[in-house]
C-alpha cells in the first residue's frame, strides 16, 4: 500500500506550507485564549453564605437578578415573611420587587400524625407546591427571606419557620438565604423601601424536582418518643446529641434529657444599627460559638452549655420560637445536614399524649403506655417527661373519646413525612395523600 518517499523538489512546497501553518498556529495559540471558549463564574447567589447582608442583596438587585426570567441561574426572589397588613403598610413598606409570604395563611397547618391531629405542623405538599409556584420560585431561584422593618420578635420567628420549611421541602442550603436584619438592614444601607406591590408571574416549578424531602430536619412524635426512650435507656448517648426546649429556663413539663433554654432569642441578641426598635440580627459563627459557651441553658437544675458540634433537636410550644435556633445551627454554623432538626409538634403535641387523655379516648393501658409522654420508658424507671402533663379537659381531647383518627395499636408514627415523601416523589406532584385534621387540637403556641 505504501507509495514510497515523496520527491524532495515536489515536496518542498507542501512541506514549507505545512511548516508555515504550524508556525502560524503556534504563534496564534501562544496568545491568550486562542481556540478556546471561556467559562462563567459559578452562580454567585448560591455560593453566598445562608445569612447574607444588605450589601449582598443590593448587589444582586443592581445586577438585575431579582425576579429575573425563569431559568436564569442567578435569579433571586425576595420573600417578605409577614402578613398582608404589614407588607402593604405605608409605614413599614417593603423591599422593591419582594413578594409576600403571608405566614398566617401560608406557613403552617393542622396535620394528622401519631394518633391524631396537631396544629402548627409542617406545611403539606400541595400547599407548599402552590406556595412555591405563587412566589415565582423555580429550580434556578435563590430565595432570600426578609421581614418588614421594626418587626416584632414574634413575626421574626415566622421568617425562621419559613427557612426551615423550605429546607425540609428539599431546597438546598445554598438556595435559601436570610437577609440578616430584614428590611431594616436594607433601609440602614441607604436603600429605599416601597409600598408598591409587584405582580410576579407564577412559576411552573414542581416540588418533585427537589427529589426528596429532608426528613432529617424534622422530628415526628414517633421519632421523639423513640429518641427520648433511647436516651432514657442509654444516657451515654447524650454525648452525641442534645435536645433544647427554648420555652424558658424553668418551664415544665418538658421532655426527659432536654435542656431548657432562655427563650427563642437567647443567642440572637444584636439588632440592626444597635437600635432597640429594629429587627434582630443573627450572629456570626464566631459570635454564636462564643455565646453557646457563655450563655447557659438548664440541664434539670444545673446550668449547662450547648455544644456547636452535637446533633441537636430543638422544640418549644408549637415550633415557632424554636425555629431561630434551627437557623442558628443550619445557617450560621452550617452543621452537616441532619445535625439540626426541629420537633414541630413540640409541647402542644406531647401535652396531649398523656396516659389520661389516651386512655380516656379508649386505648388500653398497654396501648397508652406506648404513646404517652408521662409513661415510663420500657425497661427503665425513667419517665419520658419531667413534670406533670396537663389534665384532660372535656371537649378538648384531640383524640376524641371513643374515636382515634388512627388506631392506638398502630405502628405508623411518622405519617407526615411518609405523606410528604410520597407527594414529592409523585409524578407532577399532584397526588394529595394529605388530610387535614379536625378539630384543631389545643396548643399553647410559643
Amino acid at each position, binding site marked *: 500500500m505504501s507509495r514510497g*518517499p515523496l520527491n*524532495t523538489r515536489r515536496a518542498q512546497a507542501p512541506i514549507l506550507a505545512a511548516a508555515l501553518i504550524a508556525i502560524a498556529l503556534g504563534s496564534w495559540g501562544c496568545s491568550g485564549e486562542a481556540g*478556546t471558549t471561556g467559562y462563567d463564574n459559578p452562580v454567585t447567589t*448560591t455560593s453566598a453564605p445562608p445569612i447574607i447582608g444588605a450589601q449582598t442583596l443590593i448587589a444582586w438587585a443592581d445586577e438585575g437578578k431579582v425576579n429575573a426570567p425563569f431559568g436564569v*441561574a442567578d435569579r433571586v426572589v425576595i420573600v417578605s415573611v409577614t402578613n398582608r397588613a404589614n407588607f402593604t403598610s405605608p409605614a413599614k413598606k417593603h423591599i422593591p420587587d419582594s413578594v409576600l409570604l403571608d405566614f398566617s395563611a401560608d406557613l403552617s397547618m393542622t396535620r394528622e400524625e401519631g394518633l391524631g391531629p396537631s396544629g402548627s405542623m409542617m406545611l403539606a405538599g400541595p400547599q407548599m407546591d402552590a406556595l412555591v409556584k405563587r412566589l415565582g420560585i423555580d429550580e434556578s431561584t435563590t430565595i432570600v427571606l426578609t421581614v418588614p422593618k421594626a418587626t416584632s420578635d414574634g413575626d421574626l420567628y415566622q421568617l425562621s419557620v419559613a427557612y426551615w420549611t423550605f429546607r425540609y421541602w428539599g431546597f438546598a442550603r445554598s438556595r435559601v438565604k436570610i437577609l440578616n436584619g430584614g428590611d431594616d438592614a436594607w433601609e440602614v444601607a441607604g436603600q429605599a423601601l416601597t409600598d408598591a406591590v409587584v405582580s410576579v408571574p407564577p412559576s411552573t416549578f414542581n416540588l418533585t424536582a427537589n427529589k426528596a424531602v429532608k426528613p432529617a430536619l424534622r422530628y415526628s412524635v414517633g421519632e421523639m418518643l423513640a429518641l427520648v426512650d433511647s436516651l432514657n435507656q442509654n444516657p451515654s448517648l447524650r454525648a452525641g446529641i442534645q435536645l433544647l426546649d427554648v420555652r424558658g429556663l424553668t418551664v415544665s413539663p418538658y421532655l426527659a434529657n432536654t435542656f431548657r433554654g432562655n427563650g427563642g432569642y437567647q443567642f440572637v441578641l444584636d439588632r440592626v444599627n444597635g437600635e432597640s426598635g429594629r429587627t434582630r440580627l443573627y450572629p456570626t459563627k464566631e459570635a454564636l460559638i462564643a455565646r453557646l459557651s457563655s450563655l447557659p441553658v438548664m440541664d434539670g437544675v444545673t446550668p449547662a452549655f450547648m455544644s456547636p458540634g452535637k446533633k441537636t433537636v430543638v422544640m418549644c410550644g408549637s415550633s415557632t420560637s424554636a425555629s431561630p435556633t434551627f437557623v442558628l445551627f443550619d445557617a450560621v454554623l452550617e452543621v452537616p445536614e441532619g445535625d439540626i432538626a426541629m420537633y414541630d409538634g413540640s409541647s402542644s403535641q406531647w401535652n396531649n399524649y398523656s396516659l389520661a387523655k389516651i386512655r380516656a379516648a379508649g386505648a388500653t393501658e398497654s396501648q397508652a403506655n406506648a404513646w404517652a409522654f408521662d409513661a415510663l420508658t420500657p425497661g427503665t424507671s425513667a419517665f419520658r417527661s419531667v413534670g406533670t402533663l396537663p389534665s384532660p379537659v372535656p371537649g378538648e381531647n384531640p383524640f376524641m373519646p371513643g374515636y382515634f383518627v388512627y388506631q392506638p395499636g398502630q405502628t405508623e408514627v411518622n405519617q407526615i413525612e411518609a405523606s410528604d415523601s410520597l407527594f414529592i416523589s409523585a409524578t407532577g406532584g399532584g397526588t394529595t395523600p394529605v388530610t387535614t385534621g379536625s378539630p384543631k387540637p389545643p396548643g399553647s403556641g410559643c
Partner: protein
Amino acid sequence: MNNPRTFALALTLGAGLVLPAGPSFAQSKTSAPPWGQDGGPKIVFGEEDKGVLQVDYKAQFRMTLRDLGSGLDNGDATTSFAFRRNRIALRGAWGDKFSVYIQSEFAGDSNVGAIGVTTSNGGADFQILDAVLRFDLHDSFKINVGKFKYNLSRENLEACEDPLTLDRSLFIRAPYVGTRDSGIAVWGNLFADRFQYRADAMDGRPTASGESTPASNFRYSFRGHLTLLDPESGYGYKGTYLGEKKVFTIGGAYQIEPKATYTDTISRIRAKDYKAWTVDGFFEYPVNNMGTVTLSGAYEKVDLDGAYQGANPDSGSLGLNGEKNGWYGKAGYLVKDSSLQLFGRYEKWRFASLNQTIDEIVDWYGGGLNYYVWGQSLKVSAEFSHTKFDKGSVKDFNTFVTQLQIVF
C-alpha cells in the same frame, strides 16, 4: 530553578539514561530487534494451527525532574524514577475471525502529576488494563466486547508504545473514566478503507447508587475518520509510523452520557448530562532527502452543562478531567536515514474549574527527541516541557523527562 544543583544532577542522570543506549545498538529507525518485530514468544495450537497465543512485555521507565513540587513550600525540585507503563499482554486468536487481547498494568508510583505532586505516595496498583474479545466478522463490521479504549479522541486511541511525543496529552481524558472503559463497540472500514466508523456503548461513569450518581446510564460514542493516502484501518492509531506509511487522516467524534453528574451533591439535585466532541487531524509523510515529517492536532470540548457552577458540584465535574475545552498541535521530524526523531508539542486548554479557579487556562509547551535503537521495541526519549497557568492557580513549572521504552 530553585535548586540548580539538583537540576544539573538530574540532567546528568537523564543524559546517562539516554546516551548509553545509542550508538552501539543503533542501526536505523526500522531496525528490528533480535527477538523480531512482532513482539514476544508465540504458541501455536489447535487444528490446522488455527490457535495462537502470544505474550508481550511492554515497559516505559522514566526519570522525571520538575523544578518545584517538593520541600517546605513545594518550591523545591522534584525527582522521580518510576515505571510509566509496565505491562504484560496476552494476544490470542482462533482463526481470522476471533481474537482476544488481555493486558495487565503494574505501573510505578505516579506521584508526579500533570499539574502537581501528590501529597503522599499514591502507591502502585495492579490492574487488568484491557480485556477485550474481538470479532472480526468483516472488514466493514467488527465487534469488540470487554474493557478497551473508548472512541472519543484520536490521542487516546493512539498506541502508547507508538507516540510521536513522549506521551499523550495530559489534559485530553474524558470525565469519570480512565483511558479505557467497559462495553461494546462496533466498527469497520468502508470504501476501500477510506472511511472508518465506530460506535460504542460503554459503562461511562461507574455505576453507583443515587447517593453519588444521579442515574445509571451508558455512555455512547460515535466516531468516524476519513483517511487519504495510506489507510489507517486498525482500531488503534499510532502517533508516528516512522515514515513507513504516508498518512493523512481527519476524524471527529461525539460522546454522550445522560445525567452523569449532580450540580449539588449534597441535595442530590440538578443532574447534568455529559457531552463531548472532538475533531482531529494527522499527517505523516516521508520526503526524499529530507526525512519524515509528522503533524497532528485536535480540538476537544468536554461539556457537563455547567455542573461546576452548582452549589456543591461533583469533584468529577471539576479539574483536569472535568468541564473543559482545548486543543493541541504536535509536530515531528525523523531525520533521514537516522534513528533520531525531533518533536515539539503545544497545548492550550481552558478548564471550567481547576484548583478552585474558574476559567483557568493552561498552556503547555514541550520539545524533545526520540532515539530509536530497535524501532519502537527499544527506544529512548527525552522531553522538556513548560506548563503555564494563566490565572496562577498553580505556579508555572518546568518538567524534564527521560524515558526508556522496551517492547519484548
